[in-house]
């Protein structure tokens, strides 16, 4: 390839061909259309056992979360609430996202230790604990696209260009812009700032 830059041409040929084994080693990501999903399968019961062993310490036996570690289940119907509970069941639009993330990033501190069957099983259990499948469900590459995610239609592309930019691109008011101003909240009252030894 030829790279052109101001005044000078540099012949390319930098880098070396990526080998198929190398691509295979790193190309682990999964897409919503199933691209990347390996062969394999796992059922809820197997998943429950695995989850209990390797995930529950942080995420709770049913994915309900422990302390500040993330909740993975529940929260159905809370998205319009004041404190929405966003979980795989209540929020995630694609099942592929969960398979991908669990397989590449979890368990936290020992990432990339789950094989494909284990990942299918754990995810089957998480679907079960989110009330999305029955206890005899088996997740596999084939059953993958049959799972309906409740919030699949809950996302829309960034619309700021039409909903906000016109509104926020008006000539700004410079003088006498409002009548009166009252303070309705003080951060000091909350006192959550780590500003002394006790915090």
């Amino acid at each position: 390839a030829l790279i052109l830059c101001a005044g000078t041409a540099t012949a390319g040929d930098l880098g070396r061909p990526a080998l198929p084994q190398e691509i295979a080693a790193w190309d682990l990501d999964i897409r919503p259309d199933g691209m990347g999903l390996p062969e394999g399968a796992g059922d809820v019961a197997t998943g429950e056992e695995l989850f209990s062993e390797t995930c529950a310490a942080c995420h709770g036996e049913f994915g309900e979360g422990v302390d500040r570690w993330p909740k993975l289940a529940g929260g159905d119907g809370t998205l319009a609430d004041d404190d929405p509970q966003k979980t795989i069941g209540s929020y995630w639009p694609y099942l592929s996202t969960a398979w991908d993330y669990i397989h590449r990033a979890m368990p936290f501190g020992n990432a990339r230790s789950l094989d494909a069957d284990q990942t299918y099983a754990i995810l089957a259990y998480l679907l079960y604990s989110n009330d999305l499948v029955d206890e005899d469900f088996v997740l596999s590459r084939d059953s993958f696209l049959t799972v309906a995610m409740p919030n699949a239609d809950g996302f829309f592309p960034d619309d700021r260009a039409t909903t906000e930019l016109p509104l926020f691109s008006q000539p700004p008011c410079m003088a006498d812009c409002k009548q009166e101003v009252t303070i309705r909240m003080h951060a000091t009252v909350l006192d959550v700032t780590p500003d002394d030894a006790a915090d």
Partner: protein
Amino acid sequence: AGSALAATAARAAPPDPRITEVQDWNVSWGDGVDATPYGLPIHHEAEVIRRNVPWLTADAVSSVNFTPIHALEGTITPQGCAFERHHAGAIDLPKADYRLMIHGLVDRPLVFSYDDLERFPRQNHVYFLECAANSGMEWAGAQLNGCQFTHGMIHNMEYTGVPLRALLAEAGIRPEGKWLLVEGADASAMSRSLPIEKALDDVLVAYKANGEALRKEHGYPVRLVVPGWEGNMWVKWLRRIEVGDAPWEHREETSKYTDTMADGRSRRWTWEMDAKSIITSPSPQARVNHGRGPMVISGLAWSGRGAIRAVHVSLDGGRNWQQARLSGPSHDKALHRFYLDIDWDGSELLLQSRAVDTTGYVQPTKDQLRAIRGVNSVYHMNGIQTWLVKPNGEVENVEIS
């Protein structure tokens, strides 16, 4: 008479011993040039550091700390105190072990070594990096009491790197290639989908910041620089770029970094950081220690869509606004420094700043944003911030009507 009086007063005051007495440093030696081959700030500045908020997260390896913007000036952020956000800690990845793979819908899947990257034509640009969650706590109203905590998930550095388009040209993108997956090498398996238009525009594969090698905590040896777009996309320890025909919808672009509206539906792909500004001094951590008289109001402004055209400052909670003075470098998608120099009468102030960028966008109030987005967006809070300056010089984060 007035000046005679002043002179009398001056004579009456005791001379300052710091002047009349010879100090040690006037007499004897300080440190030699071999003392600090690589220097740190002087011990008197020990408070100007990154700070984290322990209760925010379960563990420090997936957490954030904040730039001490209340104590900084100008526009450049020194690496040593530039905020960190990791999802599995800052890793130690030697240059010799570094590999960057480009594959997918390309003519030639390639692997680059670190040294390969240094053979491509390079560019230098100053850009801000703001975490999309910066100021996110403020959706619920005045929370953390200090701009380091409310607005400190930002830094501004001069990056050196290779335009991503040059690397992609080596591999040869196939016509179906419309999206990239960019992935980091750390255990968080950080990955984001990047539209090809941005990738071919101004994205850099960067290896230096402020002249020196990227710091470990900022992605040594190589990170992505995605100008004007949310910090999460600036993948650190960049190891892989896959070209595809559709977005990947990974965890950091579905479960996280999506903005939930009042009706429970969520915006995704909210990449650009809207124009924003913050008064860094006075601010809760930078109280006013002098009485009435000359006071410098200093702040930062930025926009993910261009440069800053103007900043307005209000002393009365947004009733009236004055044009601030911009001083220092003005680059697209970079921090700008603004000042308003006032003569303080010692009375209570409700300080606000409002940025206007080169597209004409005017930074909105928090309530304007809430009217559209509700209060559970978590991300992309760029509303106008209010500081209450009390007559005694204390400053507080407040929310006003």
